[in-house]
Structures are given as structure tokens and as C-alpha cells.
């Protein structure tokens, strides 16, 4: 990838809604400035809100002393974003399906489904504390970027190393 044609940003912030909200606004502003349309922005916004909420609430357990890393790259065709928390992680394969009758009236558990529905790729690192998502510009949807898992792992290791 030609670095002249991509925007790469890494932000590490405290695990508070205000800090995370600021980063979300910055990322959405970057996406809009780089040609993502209103439907793309809606999708990215929703996935980002769900992922950061999960990082704050479930990953870092609401501990504002812990950090969240948001790492994003925007090219002419897609947005790559990885969100990493300091939690123990989880196994996304063990999530209950919120759409089946017995779970339909539960008050939570819909965030990952929405992320998967609105982004082109959603994948977790092995520990389950870093989610990597890709959104292609409208009409440019392509196969998932196989390198994403490696990047998620790398981000997780960097965040963990910053604690040492």
C-alpha cells in the first residue's frame, strides 16, 4: 500500500465514554473526508459505538484507569479499524444468538451481531480483547483481508507491552 494514499492514526485513551466518544468523532470525520458516503458512515458509526461500548463495559469492566487503543487506516477503498482493551477477552463463538426466541427479550447481547451486519469483516484476536473491522466504500466490497487477524494480534501485544 502506498503510504501517501493512506491515513493511519493510532489513539490510546482512557476507558471513559467521553474520551472514546472523541475518538469516534475523529474517525468518522476522517472517513467522511475520505469519501465514505452517508450509509457507510452510519454503518461505521454503529459498529464503532458497539465495539467501543463493549471495550469499556465488558473488556475494561468500566475501569476508567484502563486504556483503549483505537487504530485506524483509511485508503481509497476501505477503512480498517482495530479496537483493543485491557480485559481478559472473550470467545465470540460462544455468544448466544440474540435472534432466537429464548433470547429475544434479553436486554443485551446484540452489539456483535450489529457489528457483523454493518461491517464487511469483523474478527477477533485469539485472546478476544481486540476486534478488527473492515468497511469497504459502497460498491467496493471485497473478500475479507486475511492480514487482519495478524494486525489485531499485533495491536494487542503493543497495548499489553505499554502496561509493562
Amino acid at each position: 500500500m502506498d503510504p501517501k494514499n493512506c491515513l493511519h492514526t493510532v489513539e490510546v485513551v482512557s476507558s471513559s465514554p467521553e474520551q472514546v466518544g472523541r475518538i469516534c468523532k475523529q474517525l468518522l470525520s476522517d472517513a467522511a473526508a475520505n469519501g465514505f458516503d452517508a450509509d457507510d458512515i452510519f454503518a461505521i458509526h454503529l459498529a464503532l459505538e458497539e465495539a467501543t461500548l463493549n471495550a469499556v463495559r465488558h473488556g475494561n469492566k468500566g475501569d476508567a484507569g484502563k486504556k483503549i487503543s483505537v487504530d485506524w487506516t483509511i485508503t481509497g477503498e476501505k477503512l480498517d479499524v482495530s479496537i483493543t482493551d485491557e480485559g481478559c477477552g472473550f470467545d465470540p463463538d460462544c455468544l448466544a444468538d440474540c435472534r432466537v426466541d429464548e433470547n429475544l427479550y434479553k436486554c443485551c447481547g446484540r452489539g456483535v451481531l450489529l457489528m457483523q451486519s454493518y461491517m464487511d469483516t469483523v474478527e477477533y484476536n485469539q485472546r478476544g480483547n481486540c476486534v478488527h473491522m473492515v468497511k469497504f466504500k459502497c460498491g467496493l466490497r471485497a473478500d475479507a483481508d486475511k492480514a487482519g487477524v495478524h494486525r489485531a494480534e499485533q495491536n494487542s501485544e503493543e497495548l499489553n507491552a505499554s502496561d509493562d
Partner: protein
Amino acid sequence: MDKAKPNIAVEYTEAATVAVLTDDKILDESEVSALESSIVPLIEQNPGINLIMDFSSVEFLTSSVLGLLIRISKKVHEGEGQLRLCGINSKILDIFRITRLDKVFDIHEGRQEALESLE
């Protein structure tokens, strides 16, 4: 911290109480919590309430709001009331469809249709 501006406007008709959500975006926990604090007393103080929630001004919401709507629905039905949602734009309606909550909630295009659906 709760926002200073009100997040619902309440209107009363002969048949129903209409809670109009006034925020265009409902994002973080504090906003959902403020919304819950505004609506739950309406339900608790009026058992058997016919509540219409009007989303005409809402352009964006997260799954936290869906969770709140489930809690509101349970409270309304515990008091043997009725809940209707209306004014939901097509993008947000997709969120209800994806999560199958369009099968849970009684959703109407406009307020008049919601009023007419009440038993």
C-alpha cells in the same frame, strides 16, 4: 453526566401518552440512562398506560437503546398497558429487523397509525 436538555417531550391524548424522543442521536450509557429516568416514572405512575414512543427525530441509536426498549416493554406489559413505537426511519428500522426486534415491538409508521392500533 446527564445532558441539560430534555430528552423526551410528553404529550397526552385521550387514548394514549406520547413520549417524543427529542435527541437525534442516542449514544452512550448516560444518554440511555437519562432517557430511562424520563420514561420509567411515566409508566410506574400510570398502570395500564397506553404509551406511544415517537422516534421521528431520532437519526441514530445503539443496541443500548434496544435494551432499554425491552425493559420499557416489560414494565408496560406488567401494568397491563400497551406500547407502540412510531416514526422510526428506514435505517433504524433495519436495526430492528436485523435483531428481529421488529417481531417483538408493535411498530407503526406514524403517530396516527399507532393511536388507531390501540385496543
